[in-house]
């Protein structure tokens, strides 16, 4: 295997909240090969966006190193980072907030192009081109972000990231606001671009269907730590970590006759300011043992390359995919 395009080595990020410390990301190590799509899934608030922002050097990691294309960029100055920005782009999770309200959409999408010194005429053509591929009418270029719907704004963000043909794109919930038909268009587009240009994606998403469609490998984060990592097939077919299993079983599937409640893992959601000792998941884990309450499990890789951080890994007792009738639950279990 060739050297990975992006390598995160024991990255951590701690925020100060009041007079306490919040560990948003703890000791995460990941490799992303060129041309690969790495999916990152995990509970809301587990540090996915923070991780993405660190890759872009928008926040500085508290510990660890980020290596891009063989080059340690952890300590690069803002200025030294700038040439690299052409290669690394991001689609932000908050589409509206990341669009300057005083800039027309055309200018927003043109911004990275201007930065690489493209000529004006070329820029205009390129802007029209990317707007079109994300499914926005050409006259959008002339309007301001506030006049767009949520999904359209998100597509503006995607268009901006695509414009310079970067080598790595961090997509933070990049298709969450799109309806499935547009989403399908965009996903197909991303995959086709990847096939053609070999662009690498770090794809943060909650939509496991999307993740499964697009990603080659998937990392599952829980409370700032990678709890499981493996190929798409490994993760969806043979999840080892109980949290991964819980995630898969909570997916609502489209179709008739599925109405009702989905069971959710019971137990307390751990607090990153005051994380529980031992395995972060032990409070909600159905397989919890005493060891889990005191020892943090390390990420252990099996022969197939699937890695899991669990003292008692293994397939779920139940099948990962629920039968429709399982969904009906009693009141008390709802919380």
């Amino acid at each position: 295997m060739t050297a990975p395009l992006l390598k995160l080595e024991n990255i951590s990020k701690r925020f100060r909240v009041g007079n306490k410390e919040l560990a948003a990301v703890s000791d995460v190590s990941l490799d992303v090969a060129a041309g690969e799509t790495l999916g990152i899934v995990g509970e809301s608030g587990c540090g996915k966006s923070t991780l993405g922002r660190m890759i872009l050097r928008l926040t500085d990691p508290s510990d660890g190193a980020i290596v891009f294309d063989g080059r340690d960029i952890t300590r690069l100055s803002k200025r030294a980072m700038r040439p690299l920005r052409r290669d690394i782009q991001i689609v932000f999770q908050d589409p509206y907030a990341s669009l300057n309200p005083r800039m027309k959409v055309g200018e927003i999408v043109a911004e990275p192009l201007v930065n690489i010194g493209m000529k004006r005429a070329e820029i205009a053509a390129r802007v029209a081109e990317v707007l079109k591929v994300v499914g926005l009418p050409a006259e959008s270029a002339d309007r301001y972000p506030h006049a767009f719907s949520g999904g359209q704004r998100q597509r503006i963000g995607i268009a901006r990231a695509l414009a310079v043909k970067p080598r790595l794109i961090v997509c933070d919930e990049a298709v969450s606001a799109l309806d499935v038909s547009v989403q399908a268009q965009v996903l197909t587009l991303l995959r086709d671009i990847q096939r053609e240009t070999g662009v690498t994606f770090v794809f943060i998403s909650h939509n496991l269907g999307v993740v499964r469609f697009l990603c080659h490998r998937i990392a599952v984060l829980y409370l700032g730590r990678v709890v499981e990592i493996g190929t798409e097939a490994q993760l969806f077919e043979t999840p080892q970590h109980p949290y991964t299993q819980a995630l898969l079983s909570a997916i609502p599937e489209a179709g008739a006759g599925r109405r009702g409640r989905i069971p959710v893992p019971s137990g307390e959601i751990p607090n990153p300011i005051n994380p529980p000792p031992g395995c972060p998941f032990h409070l909600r884990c159905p397989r919890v043992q005493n060891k889990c309450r005191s020892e943090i499990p390390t990420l252990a890789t099996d022969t197939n390359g699937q890695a899991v951080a669990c003292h008692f890994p293994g397939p779920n007792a139940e099948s990962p995919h629920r039968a429709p009738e399982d969904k009906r639950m009693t009141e008390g279990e709802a919380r």
Partner: protein
Amino acid sequence: MKLLDLSGLSVSFNTLRGPVEVLKDVSFDVMPGEVVGVVGESGSGKSVTSLAIMGLLGHSGKITSGNIALSGTDLTTLSGEELRALRGPEMAMIFQEPGTSLNPVQRVGDQIVEAMTEHAFCPPAEARRRAVELMDRVGIPAPDLRARDYPHQLSGGMKQRIMIAIALACRPKLLIADEPTTALDVTIQAQILNLILDLKDEFGMGVMLITHDMGVVAQIADRVVVMYGGQVVERSEGDALFTRSAHPYSRLLLRSIPSASQRQDDLPIIKGTMPAAGRFPDGCRFHERCPMAMEACALSVPPLTETGPAHFARCFRTEAIDELEALA
């Protein structure tokens, strides 16, 4: 009685180059204790519909025709103050973009508390307690600590959950949820949906749920409204959408869902893109992208016709809808 009754709602925005009609003749209703799912193309006017109901279109948006009746009162005739009194306890909304929808300089806990104290829903101390409880119910860990955070200190999903807590604070009779779970992982999403179902069952809350997630629709929507290009193109019972959808757009839409349970190599897509508001073609607004379009589709606007029990579709070719599979 109907909790919410939209009839013939049209909305246009004043832009520099004249008004742009964004909603045209939108009609549907929500009964108490019912979840109505609203799905549709991005930009089709789902959010605008909900803003129009809330009376929050802003200074450039205008309801040009139609009525919005909430428990029988026509909201379009109410004064600002009367509307305000309704917002919160009678109807509440979860906004689509939590990132910009929270006040950046107010603690999130206070933002929830305010929703209650402003309506004298309960005494301030009680409101505070309830706010923490709500945060707990929407799945925010250490809610008492997190209540003191400012929005920028929270993750995207947490902000979204704060929005949900705000909307639920006064136990509204009508909840308009504009993509409430897009930023949430499936476990928390399930938790939130369950919470909404609880409230619906306990208090008879009616829900207008805008979402892209067909799984969510399948799971909790009693009835579904499909929108395209500022119009309602189909209205049906929840399951009926999946089993016998009568509009080509809906059918094509359903095929585009990426599945988590099996690997797909390709996602079927609808060719072309929806035109910008105001640039819709004459006739059926979908006809340019519709594989079964015929000449008539380009000439006149199809009416919303009943195709089955409680099932309406805006298409001239509903009878022939099953040909679609063959065409696409």
